[in-house]
C-alpha cells in the first residue's frame, strides 16, 4: 500500500471513529438527544466503545482468513485507542451525570454494583493497554511480553459484555447481538490457528509426497 492510500484511509478511519461523538455533540447543540439525555449519552458512548473493541478484535481473524488484508493491522491501534476514548467518555458520563462527581457515591457504586465493577475492570485494563500502545513501549517490553500484556484485551472485552448484561433488566436480550459477535471473534482465533496448521501440514505432506 502506498503512502497516499494509507493517509487517506487513516483519515477516513479517524472520521468514522469520531462520527459517534459528532452525533452526540450535534444532539447537544440542537437539543435533540431524546427525552432522557443522560441515558442517551451513557448508552451511545458505551455502545461505541464495545463496537470499536469488537472491530479491533476482528482484524486478526480477517488477516488469517485473507492474507491480502494484512495491511488492516495498521489500523488496529487507532481503533483500539478510540475504543478507550469512548470508554473514558462513558466513565466520565457515569461519574458526572449519575454519581454527581461525589467520590463516596462512586466508590459505593464500584463496590456494591457488580455491573459497575465489571465496567470499571474493563476500563482499567484499557488504560493499561492504551498506556503501552506506543512503539517505545513495545521496544521497551519486548514483543513477547507486550503481546502477552495485550492479550488482556480479551479480558477487557468480556468484562465489557458482562457489564452490559448485568446492566439491563433480567429477561431483556438487547446485548445478545453484540455478545454473539464478540463470541465469534474470540472463538475464531483457536479455530483459525488450527485450520492454518492443518493447511500447512497438508501442504508439507503434498510437497514430500
Amino acid at each position: 500500500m502506498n503512502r497516499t492510500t494509507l493517509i487517506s484511509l487513516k483519515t477516513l478511519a479517524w472520521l468514522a471513529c469520531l462520527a459517534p461523538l459528532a452525533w452526540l455533540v450535534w444532539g447537544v447543540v440542537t437539543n435533540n438527544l431524546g427525552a432522557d439525555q443522560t441515558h442517551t449519552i451513557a448508552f451511545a458512548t458505551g455502545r461505541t466503545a464495545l463496537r470499536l473493541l469488537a472491530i479491533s478484535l476482528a482484524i486478526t481473524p480477517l488477516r488469517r482468513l485473507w492474507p491480502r488484508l494484512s495491511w488492516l493491522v495498521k489500523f488496529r491501534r487507532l481503533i483500539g485507542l478510540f475504543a478507550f476514548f469512548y470508554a473514558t467518555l462513558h466513565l466520565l458520563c457515569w461519574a458526572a451525570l449519575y454519581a454527581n462527581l461525589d467520590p463516596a457515591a462512586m466508590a459505593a457504586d464500584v463496590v456494591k454494583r457488580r455491573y459497575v465493577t465489571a465496567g470499571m475492570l474493563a476500563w482499567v485494563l484499557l488504560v493499561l493497554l492504551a498506556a503501552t500502545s506506543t512503539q517505545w513501549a513495545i521496544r521497551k517490553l519486548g514483543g513477547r511480553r507486550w503481546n502477552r500484556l495485550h492479550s488482556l484485551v480479551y479480558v477487557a472485552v468480556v468484562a465489557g459484555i458482562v457489564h452490559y448484561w448485568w446492566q439491563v433488566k433480567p429477561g431483556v436480550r438487547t446485548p445478545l447481538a453484540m455478545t454473539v459477535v464478540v463470541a465469534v471473534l474470540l472463538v475464531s482465533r483457536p479455530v483459525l490457528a488450527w485450520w492454518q496448521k492443518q493447511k500447512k501440514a497438508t501442504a508439507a505432506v503434498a510437497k514430500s509426497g
Partner: protein
Amino acid sequence: MLIGKPADIASAEITSLSDYRKFMSRRKLLKGAALAGAAALGAERVAEFLSPQTVRAGTKLQTVPSQLTTTGEQLTSYTDATTYNNYYEFGVDKDQPAKNAGRLPTRPWTVKIEGKVAKPLTFDIDALLKLRPLEDRVYRHRCVEAWSMVIPWVGYSLSELIKQCNPLSTAMYVQFLSYFDAKVEGAWMSQSSISWPYSEGLRMDEAMHPLTLLTFGMYGETLANQNGAPMRVVVPWKYGFKSAKSIVTIRLTDKMPSTTWNDMAPGEYGFYSNVNPNVDHPRWSQKTERRIGQPFYAQHKATLMLNGYADQVGSLYSGMDLKRNF
C-alpha cells in the same frame, strides 16, 4: 385530606395553566390542520406516511378539576410522555411502543371485575368513561429506572369502580391483567423472556386509596395506546411498573397475586415497590432521579419519599419495615 404540598421549584420553571392551554390549543390547531389535510387527500395513510411517528390524535375528554392534583411541577411535554415509554409488549426500547402500539385494538373493549366480589361485573369501556366525572390530576411519575415525568392524567379513583362490585371481606389484594394477544404483540415477544399477560397488583387498602387513579386520559384527551389505552391505573407513590396499562381484568383475591417483574427478579422489584430514596435498587441508587425533557446537566433531582405523596399515603405503611417490604 391533605393536598400534596408544592415542591421546591423556581416559579419560572412552572408552566402556567394559560401556557398549558395555549400549548393544548396549538396542538389542537395543528391536529385539525393535519386531519383536514389528510381528509382532503382522502387517506389517513398519507399522513401516516409523511410522519410515521406522529401519535394518533386522541379524543378530547370532558373533565373537572380535582383536589388531589399535584401542584408546583413543570409538566413533561406531550411528545416526551408519548414517545419515551416502557411497554414491553410492543418492544423493549423506549421508542418502540410509540411506533408499534397502534396495533392495539382499543374498541370494542371490555373490563371484567371478578374474584372476591359479591357482584362480578363486565363493563364496556364507554360505560366506564361515564361512571363518574373525569378529573384532571397531575401526578409525578417515577420509574424504577430512576427517570421521572410529571403528567396530567384524566380519570377517577379506582375505588369508585371497585365499590360497584361489592368486594367481599376476604378480598385482600387486587390484581390487574393487561391485554395480551400473541397475534398482535407476538412480534416483540422474543425481545425478552417475560411470560404474558402483564400482571400487577396492589394491597386492597392501596387500591381503595383515593390517589389510586383509574385512568382514561392524559393532557385532556384519551390515552395514547403506548401509555396504556384505553384504561390503566396510575399509582403515583409507586414505581411506574406498578401502574398496569391497557387493563382487561381486575381480580380481587385473598392471596398476594403474582406480578410480572416480581416474578422476573424478586430481588430487584418488590411487590410493594414504593418510591423510596433510602432503598437502593441492587443496580443503582434511588436517591436521585433524572427528570425527562431537561438538558443533561439539569436532569438530576432528589427523589422524594413515596414520590412526594407521603402525607397522603404514609399511614398505609405505618409500622412496616419498608426496607424489607421494598
